[in-house]
C-alpha cells in the first residue's frame, strides 16, 4: 500500500508544482501563451482549394425537422506563410432572408496546410421562404488587427428545392 500512497503523493506534488510554476505568484512560465485563442496581428497566404457553390441551396429539413434549411457549402483552403495570429473569415450572406453566417478559423504558425471551414446549415422561417431563388454573397478574407485581405468574393444564386 505504501508505494501507491507515494505515487499518489507524487501526482499531487506534480499538480501543485506545475500550478506554482505557471501561476501568477512565481510567473516562471506562461503555458497559455503558446495556444492563443483570439486574433492578433499578422498575415498569411491563403488560396482556395475547394468550394462548390452549387451546394448553396434551400431544401427541406430531414430526420423529422419540419423547417426549410439553407445549406452552406464548406470551403477548403491552403494556408502557408502564417505570421502572427491572423484568422480566416468565411462569410455567407442572404440579405432578403436576414441570414448572415460567419465561420472563422484562427491561424497560428503551426497550422499551415489544408484548413476546412464548414458552416452549419441554417433553419429558416417556414413562412418566410416564398421566392424560388435568392441572392447570396460569399466572401473569404484573411483578417488581423493590422491587415484585412479579401481573397474571394462572389454573388451566387440560391436555388429553393421543394
Amino acid at each position, binding site marked *: *500500500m505504501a508505494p*501507491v*500512497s507515494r*505515487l*499518489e503523493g*507524487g*501526482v*499531487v506534488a*506534480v*499538480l*501543485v508544482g*506545475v*500550478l*506554482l510554476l*505557471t*501561476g*501568477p*505568484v512565481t510567473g516562471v512560465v*506562461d*503555458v*497559455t501563451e503558446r*495556444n*492563443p*485563442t483570439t486574433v492578433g496581428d499578422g498575415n498569411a497566404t491563403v488560396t482556395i482549394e475547394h468550394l462548390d457553390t452549387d451546394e448553396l441551396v434551400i431544401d427541406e*429539413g*430531414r*430526420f*423529422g*425537422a*419540419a*423547417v426549410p*434549411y439553407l445549406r452552406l457549402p464548406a470551403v477548403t483552403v491552403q494556408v502557408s506563410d502564417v505570421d502572427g495570429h491572423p484568422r480566416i473569415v468565411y462569410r455567407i450572406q442572404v440579405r432578403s432572408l436576414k441570414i448572415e453566417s460567419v465561420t472563422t478559423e484562427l491561424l497560428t504558425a503551426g497550422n499551415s496546410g489544408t484548413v476546412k471551414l*464548414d458552416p*452549419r*446549415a*441554417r*433553419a*429558416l*422561417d*417556414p413562412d418566410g421562404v416564398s421566392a424560388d431563388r435568392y441572392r447570396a454573397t460569399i466572401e473569404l478574407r484573411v483578417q488581423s488587427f493590422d491587415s484585412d485581405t479579401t481573397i474571394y468574393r462572389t454573388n451566387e444564386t440560391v436555388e429553393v428545392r421543394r
Partner: protein
Amino acid sequence: MTDWRPESLDRVERSMPEGSIERVVAAGRLVFGDRTGVAIWLGLVLSLGLCWRVGFFITDTYPIANAVVSLADGRLAMSATDFEYSLTLGTQPGLHRYDGAYYARNYGHVVAALPILFVLETVSVVGPPRLVLAAGWSLGVLLFGRQLAVLLDRPAIRPAAGLVAVSSFLLAVALATALPHDLLPLVALQLSTLFAAGLAGVWCYRLVALFHERRVAVVAGVGLVLATPVGFWATIPKRHVLVTALLVASVYAFALSRTTDDVRGDLALGGAYAFLGLIAWVHAFEGFFLVLSLFVVDVVTEPRKGRRRIAVTVGLFGLSLLPMFVTNVLISGTPLRPPRLLPQVDTGSVDLRPETATGGLDGGDSGANAGRAGGENPGSTESEASSPLDRLVGRIAPVLGFAGIVRSEIVFVGEYAVDVVDDGLRAVTDLDRLWNVFVRRTSGNNSPNDYEPIDLSVLESTPVLGALAAVPPLGAAWLWRGRISIGALSARRQTDLLVCTQAAIFSVVYLPQLPLYSQITTRYLLPVMALAAYGTVRLPAVRDAINTELATFVATYGLAVVGGIVTIWLGLGSFEPAIGEAVQFHATLGLLTGGALAVAVGGRTVAPGWVHPRTVAVSLGVAGGVTTVFIVLAALEYFAYGTFASDVAATVARHVSLL
C-alpha cells in the same frame, strides 16, 4: 454500510487538531452516506466535467452571474455599472428592478455559488484558472480511484487512477489556453449546478437504498443523472438541477422519517421540509407548490404526530425559510415577495445609457410600481405621519404594518396559487398539449431559437421513462386487490404517494406555459422527470432485470453509449445535419427506444412468462444510453458556445466535427 474512512487518513490526522477528521468524516457521511455515495458523486462530476463549456448557453444566466459578481463584492442591489457580463439590460431576461436598483432572481442559487467562487479565487492566486480546473479534475480522479479500489476490491485501480490523473494534467498543460480571471464567477455558478447534479445522483442512490438492493440503488443514482436530462443541465447554471437535487434530498429525508420514530426520524422530516424551504429561496413558486404537496401527503399518511416531531419540523422548516425572507426583505421590504414577482426589466428595450441608481430622479420607482407584478405592492404604500396621533400610530405602525404586509402577501400568494392550479387543471384536458409536452413535440414556436426544432418532449429526451407504461396495469391490480388504507401505508408506499403527488402538482402548475421554446429537454419539468426516474426503479420488472441481469444491463448501456457516439459520428456525420436535424434524430431515437422499453417492461409486468428479464435489461440499457449519448454530443458537438473547461475535450471536439 462500508467504512467511509480511508485508512491513510491516520497520518494526516496527526497533523490536525483533535477531532477535526472525525467531524469531516461525519459531515461526509451526512452528505454522501457511505463510500459508494462518494464514488457516485465523483464519477458523475468528473465525467460531466469533461462535457463542460464555460459560457452562456441561455441569456437568462446573465443576470444570475452578474448577481454572483455583485454579491461576492458585498452588494445585493446592482446598478447598471455593476454588470460584469452582458452590459445591456435588453440581453438579460430575468433582471428585476425595485426602487431604482437592479436585482437578479434565484438568490439561493447565487449564494450557493459564493463559497465555490471563494475557493476558486483563492487557488487562482497560486495557479492560472485553466490549470486550477485541470488540477481539480485530476485530484478528483485520484480520489475516485481510491474509492473504486476499495469498493470493487481491485487495488490496481489506484495506480491506474494516478496515471490518468497525472497524464491528463500534463496534457492539459500542453494544450492550455487562457481562461480569463473574469470568468471565475460564471465558473463557480456552473460548478454549483455540476456539484448539485452529482448530489442529486447520490441522494437518489440513498433513497433507493432505503428500500431496495444496493445494485439497484447505484443504477438509480447514476441513471438519475446520465439517463435523464439532469446531466444535460448539469453545467448549464439554470435553477432546474439545483431544485431537482433539493427535491430528491427532500424525498429521501421524507422516506427516512418514515422508517424510524426516534429523533433521527424527526430531524429527517424537518429536513424534508427544510430542503423544500431552500427551493423557495431559489424559486419561490416551485418551493410553494412542493411544500404544499409534502404537507398534504405528510398529514394524510401520518395524521398523529408527537409534540417533538412537530416542534423539530416546524423549527427546521422555519429556519430554512429565513434566508429567503431576509433576501426578500432586503430587496423589497416584504418577506413573501421574491424578486421574481417584482417588475421585470423590459427585455425589448436595449438601453446603453448608464443609469443613476440613487434617488428617485430616474423614474425607477414609478417603473417599479407600474410593472406586471400583479396586485398592489404593499411595500411601497408608506403613509406620511404628521399629526401627533399619526406620530403615535407611526410608532407601532412598523409592527402592525409588517403584520398587515404579511397578511396581504399571504392573500396574494393564495389567490395566485388558486389561479395557477385552475389554469393548470384546464390545461390537463388539452390532449394536444399533453401529447406535445410528454410524447412527441411537433408544434410550438421555434422563432426564438432561429427556427431550429431543438425542443424535445419528456419521452424524446428521457426514453427510460417509457418503463412507466407498467404503472397503469400495476395500479389497476393494486386497486383490484382492494387494500387501500392511506393511514396504513408502508414507508415505501408513502414515499410513492409523495413522489406521485409532487410530480402531478409540479406538472399541473407548469402545463399552461408548455410547450415553450428554449426548453430543449422540457426543462421546466426536470424535477418531475427525476421523480419519474425514481418511479421506474420502483417497478418490480425493472428491479428484477437489474438484479438478475446486471452484467447484461451494464454491457448494453456501455455499448449503447460508445456505439451510439461512434455510429452517430460516422453515420449521421456523413449527412452533415443541421443542429435541428440532429436533435430531431435524437428525438426519433428516444421515441423508438422509449417505446421498446415500454413494451418490454409492460409485457414483463402483465405477462411475466412472455418477456425475459434480459430483454428488459437490454431495452433499459439502450434507452438510458440514448440519453447519455445526447448529453455527450449536445455538449461536444451540437450546442457550440463559450469555451470548454477542459482543453483536452476542446481538442477532441475540434478534430471530431460532426455538424
